[in-house]
Every structure is written in structure tokens, then in C-alpha cells.
């Protein structure tokens, strides 16, 4: 009403204004149709404006109004439709046309349309499309229901304009995203399945390649220490033992070192130094493995042979029980050297994961513990580590996976000898280094098949380790849930 009166009178517009909040000079405001109708009934000479459906259903008395064409019209379906038909719907973005004072002899001057507001760009295009489908259904099947409720259905011409406007947003809501979404979904599904396909392909090719060896040696291949290409006798015990031993040595050194590094970076280091130190540790992972191998062979092994192995042999070598691990001539290269090089290689992986998960501990937990008088170590041991144990185990498993499969660095320093020896000073072999060293020179079906079988064993060991870690993590998570 104020919209119409403001259009009709500049004085009214200046004095009262238009919009949702106006300055009425006199009168009483009623709340909703009921409130207005109630006041009009009670106050002598009062007039009010209520919704047509309410006036009709409650049989209220109403009057005519003069429209823009100077004609006096009554409120009814016909005059409302005339107002809607005369409006220039596309003149306002989103068809937000105010239907007051529309042109047309039969147009009711204070008609209002109901609008539904939708985001043009939907976060969930599927939901947006369903909403549009509903309104499309409502335009086709709901017009009769609107008339029953004493609302005035939109004229067909206007409905066509609205539906045409929807096409402008098809990219956001319509058919376009259906196709793009389906394409994207199926493409990502294809990539995910391709990983399984690739794994299955690798497994099948390894199994097929190792078949002659499996037929010749059976399960004995696993615990046979012999490796004799001349007489075609092969066993995987030495490479398996070398792989396991070097990985165990690597993790024995890398886990405490990485834990210490992560503790220092998160709890002790000044803030300005954290980033630089963290990056420096991560740079260890950026060094190519062949550099580790060369450096290990030409720099580390000679120094280790001259200065460290003799000391270890004199001290730990004499301790009963572990003495045999540090006995024998100091050769520089060997299982222990390979394990140490591997440890340096996996430290950045484990330390980075540990640091990241330590930083996720809510400060409130740590500060509560400090407030109770805990030392830094007690906070780390009793608060940080229990909170992050799943992530810490994940980081260790990541390092173990790297250690099991590492090839070049180990090949340089492990000694590449197919001999089983209790001493860690002795040269040995790992599965990866055996494959790297011998695959190009393998002649004969059985020799190649034995190497394929080694590859299959490495694949299975890695799979078992990863599966075991997943089970351990899920068991831990279940335990946490039960405790919670």
C-alpha cells in the first residue's frame, strides 16, 4: 500500500516513506491479517489492508480502487491476473517486479506476487535441481490448488517467462551439472578402480613370472639360504633376512630420533626457529637415494670401518647374547651400515608426521597438564603421545614401508653377498638389492623366476605390514571409542 501511495503522492513519500518500515503519522498497527481485521472491526471509520484470501474467506467488506488507467476496479482473480500480465517481468534481475500501479484497464493497483529465493550457484547441484523440479511440477499441477486457497495462479505467459529464465541458470542447476557431475564421478571411480587394477596386474604378473620357481622349489624357497645361479638352486632366506634386519635396524634408530626431533620442534624450539629446522630435517628426504648410496659407500663406510666398528666389536661384541651381532672383521659395508643409512633416510618421513600430529594436540590439554605442575617431558609422555598415538604409528609405518622397499642406497652399502651371517658387520643382501643387482644378468627361466618370486615376496611383506598397521590403527580407534 505504501508503495502505491508513494508512487501516487510525493508528499506521502516524503512524510511517510516506503519499504518495510514507515513513519505513519497516525493510526494503530495491527499484527498480520487478523490484527488488522480486528482493529478495523473495532475502530469506527477505520480502513485497513489485508490479504485477499483472508478478506474473502472471512467475508470482509472491501472497496474498489482507482488504478493507473483511471479505472475503478475491484479485487478479484481477473484484476490480479491483469496486473501480473501487464508487468515487465524481465525489467528487474530475478523478476523481482513490484506489481503495484501496473498498467492495464483491469489491473488491481496493489497486487503482490510471492517469490521463492534460490541461490543461483548451489553447493549441492542435485538438491537445486530437485527444487526446480518441484516448482516445475507446481506450475503444471499446482495451479488448481492455488485457486482453491484463494490465491491467483500465475498467467501461463508469465510461467513460460519464468521457465525460460531457469534455462539461464542451467549451468548451475539444470542438465549441465548432471552430465559434468556424472562424468566427474565416473572418472574418479575409474581412477580409483585403476589402482586396484594396477595392483592386481602387478600381483598377477609377479605370480605368473615366479611360477617356474614356485613349481621347482615350493614353499622351501622361503627358508632355503642357498643362492646358486650356476646350479639353478635358489632360496629367499638371505634376502628376506637382510630386508627384515636392515628395516629393524633403521626403525630402531629412526623412531627415537624422529620422536626427539618432533618433541624439540613442537615443545622446545623457539617459534622463529621451528620452520627453518623443520625444513632442514625434511631436506633429508629430498636427497636422492643414489646420493645416500654413493656417500655411504665412499664416505661413511670407510669411517665406520675404521672408527666405529672396532669400538662396537670391543664393547658390545663381548656382551653375551648380543655379542655375535657385533663380531667378525670390520668391513665398513654390511647390514649395520645399510641399516644406519636407511635410518637417516626414513627419519624425515617419521619426524614430519610426528611433528604434524603433535601440533594437532589441543593447547588446552597441554596447558591443563602444565597447570597441574607437569614437566615438559610429562606433558609429552602423558598427554601428547596418548593423544597422537594413531598418527605416530602411521608415521612409523610410513617409514617402515620406505625402509622395506629402498633399493639403491642399500645396494651400495649392504655388500650383496648371499650368505647368512649372525654378525651385522657381515655383508648380506636385501630383496630389493638382489633384484637391482641380478635382474639384468639373470639367464635361464628358473633364475628369472626366482627373482620374480623375490619380488612377489617383497610385495606380500609390504602388503602384510600395511594391512597389519591398518588393523592396529582401527583396533586403537575402536579402543578409543569404547573408552569414550
Amino acid at each position, binding site marked *: 500500500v505504501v508503495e502505491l501511495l508513494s508512487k501516487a503522492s510525493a508528499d506521502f513519500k516524503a512524510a511517510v516513506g516506503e519499504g518495510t518500515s514507515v513513519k505513519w503519522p497516525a493510526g494503530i498497527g495491527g499484527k498480520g491479517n487478523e490484527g488488522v481485521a480486528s482493529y478495523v472491526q473495532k475502530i469506527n471509520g477505520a480502513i485497513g489492508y489485508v490479504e485477499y484470501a483472508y478478506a474473502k474467506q472471512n467475508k470482509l467488506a472491501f472497496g474498489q480502487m482507482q488504478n493507473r488507467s483511471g479505472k475503478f476496479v475491484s479485487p478479484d482473480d481477473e484484476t490480479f491476473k491483469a496486473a501480473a500480465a501487464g508487468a515487465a517481468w524481465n525489467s528487474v534481475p530475478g523478476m523481482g517486479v513490484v506489481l503495484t500501479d501496473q498498467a492495464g484497464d483491469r489491473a488491481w493497483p496493489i497486487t503482490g506476487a510471492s517469490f521463492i529465493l534460490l541461490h543461483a550457484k548451489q553447493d549441492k547441484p542435485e538438491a537445486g535441481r530437485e527444487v526446480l523440479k518441484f516448482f516445475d511440477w507446481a506450475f503444471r499441477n499446482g495451479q488448481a490448488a492455488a485457486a482453491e486457497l484463494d490465491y491467483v495462479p500465475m498467467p501461463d505467459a508469465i510461467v513460460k517467462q519464468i521457465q525460460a529464465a531457469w534455462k539461464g541458470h542451467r549451468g548451475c542447476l539444470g542438465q549441465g551439472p548432471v552430465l559434468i557431475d556424472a562424468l566427474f564421478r565416473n572418472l574418479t571411480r575409474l581412477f580409483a578402480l585403476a589402482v586396484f587394477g594396477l595392483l592386481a596386474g602387478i600381483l598377477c604378473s609377479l605370480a605368473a613370472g615366479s611360477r617356474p620357481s614356485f613349481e621347482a622349489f615350493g614353499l622351501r624357497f622361503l627358508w632355503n639360504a642357498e643362492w646358486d645361479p650356476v646350479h639353478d638352486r635358489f632360496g629367499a632366506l638371505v634376502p628376506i633376512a637382510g630386508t627384515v634386519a636392515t628395516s629393524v635396524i633403521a626403525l630402531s634408530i629412526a623412531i*627415537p*630420533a*624422529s*620422536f*626427539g*626431533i618432533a*618433541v*624439540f*620442534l613442537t*615443545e*622446545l624450539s623457539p617459534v622463529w626457529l621451528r620452520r627453518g*629446522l623443520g625444513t*632442514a*630435517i625434511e*631436506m*633429508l628426504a629430498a*636427497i636422492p637415494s643414489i*646420493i*645416500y648410496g654413493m*656417500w655411504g659407500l665412499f*664416505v661413511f663406510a670407510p669411517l665406520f670401518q675404521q672408527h666405529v666398528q672396532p669400538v662396537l666389536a670391543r664393547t658390545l661384541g663381548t656382551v653375551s647374547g648380543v655379542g655375535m651381532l657385533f663380531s667378525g672383521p670390520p668391513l665398513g659395508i654390511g647390514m649395520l651400515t645399510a641399516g644406519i643409512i636407511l635410518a*637417516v633416510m626414513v*627419519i*624425515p618421513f617419521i*619426524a614430519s608426521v610426528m611433528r604434524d600430529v603433535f601440533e594437532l594436540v589441543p593447547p588446552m590439554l597441554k596447558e591443563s597438564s602444565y597447570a597441574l*605442575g607437569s*614437566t*615438559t*617431558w*610429562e606433558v*609429552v609422555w602423558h598427554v601428547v603421545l596418548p593423544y597422537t598415538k594413531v598418527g605416530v604409528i602411521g608415521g612409523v609405518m610410513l617409514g617402515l614401508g620406505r625402509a622395506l622397499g629402498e633399493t639403491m642406497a642399500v645396494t651400495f652399502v649392504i655388500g650383496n653377498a648371499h650368505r647368512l651371517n649372525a654378525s651385522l658387520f657381515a655383508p648380506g643382501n636385501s630383496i630389493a638389492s638382489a633384484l637391482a643387482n641380478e635382474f639384468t644378468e639373470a639367464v635361464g627361466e628358473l633364475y628369472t623366476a626366482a627373482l620374480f618370486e623375490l619380488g612377489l615376496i617383497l610385495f606380500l611383506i609390504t602388503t602384510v605390514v600395511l594391512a597389519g598397521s591398518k588393523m592396529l590403527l582401527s583396533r586403537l580407534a575402536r579402543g578409543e571409542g569404547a573408552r569414550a
Partner: protein
Amino acid sequence: MSARALRVSEANPRYRRRRRVNGAMMGLSMAALAFGLAWLAWILAVLVHEGAAALGLRSSRR
């Protein structure tokens, strides 16, 4: 000295032990970082030294 004051004083053996353990662990933590950085520095130093020497040898031959 009250019992409460004794609990957090140097005279309390448990407090002294906790502080010692904390100091040792923080020392080990720093040592671990030094351990990690030492390998990096060692490898890089060898690479730079040997690489630079090889480059110098080559240019002097030219």
C-alpha cells in the same frame, strides 16, 4: 617448612627426580635434532666439497 612447600622444593627427592628426568629427556630431544641435522650437513658438505673440487680440476685442465 610446610608439607605443601616441601612437595615442590629441591629437598623433595621425587621433585628432584622429575626434574632430572625432564632435563635428560629434553637434552636427548636436542641431541636427536642435532643427530638429524648432522647427517644433512655431512652429506651436503661432502657433496659440495667433492663437487667443487671436481669442477676446479676440470677447469684447470681446460
